[in-house]
């Protein structure tokens, strides 16, 4: 199973960046194969925030977040007390930012590979979670 950080979803919509092609190929693989994804509910808020702030289009940001929310192969995980506990421990041990720790906690709790472009995920989580870039995961 996979947990996919918001950075991958955002990168896939930024065609001028070098990582974008890898993110698109990886997401296409996930979507066309209907691979099981386990994601924090935070993901849709981050997608909406990123699109609204970078494209200045409120309606489209909500439409995109809704489209991700209704993907049937994503299992949504709310930030409950147990997940909060795991996130705070990972945040402390790995010196992660709060939102980064939430994705790490979901991946750790559900035994998922974490697919991310976040440098702190990639550099600091290796002892706790299997972390890969989308390009590496698609290879």
């Amino acid at each position, binding site marked *: 199973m996979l947990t996919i950080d918001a950075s991958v979803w955002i990168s896939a919509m930024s065609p001028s960046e070098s990582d974008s092609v890898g993110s698109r190929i990886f997401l296409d693989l996930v979507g066309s194969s209907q691979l099981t994804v386990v994601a924090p509910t935070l993901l849709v808020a*981050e997608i909406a925030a990123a699109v609204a702030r970078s494209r200045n289009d409120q309606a489209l940001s909500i439409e995109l977040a809704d*489209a991700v929310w209704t993907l049937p192969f994503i299992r949504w995980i709310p930030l409950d007390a147990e997940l909060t506990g795991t996130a705070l421990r990972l945040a402390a041990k790995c010196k992660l930012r709060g939102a980064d720790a939430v994705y790490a906690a979901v991946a750790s709790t559900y035994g998922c590979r974490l697919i991310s472009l976040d440098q702190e995920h990639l550099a600091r989580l290796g002892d706790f979670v299997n972390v890969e870039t989308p390009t590496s995961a698609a290879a």
Partner: protein
Amino acid sequence: MATTLKQVEAMVDELATDDQVRLMKYLAPRIQSGSEKASSVPDEADGAWAHYKRVADQVATLPSVPKTTAEIMNDIRR
């Protein structure tokens, strides 16, 4: 303890022929409905994925602020 399929098969074998026919009539619409649901799942999933791709492509074509994904992520997680 849950009933196993093997136990159900043994019970069905013990039924009188008339009851087996009644059982067939009971099961037929349920099997049909189950098959239809199973075959419609990939279609729904494909449709949802295609919809996501359409919206994501629309976002990708919009002019963006001159920021990388890393900078946008820093903005929304700061």
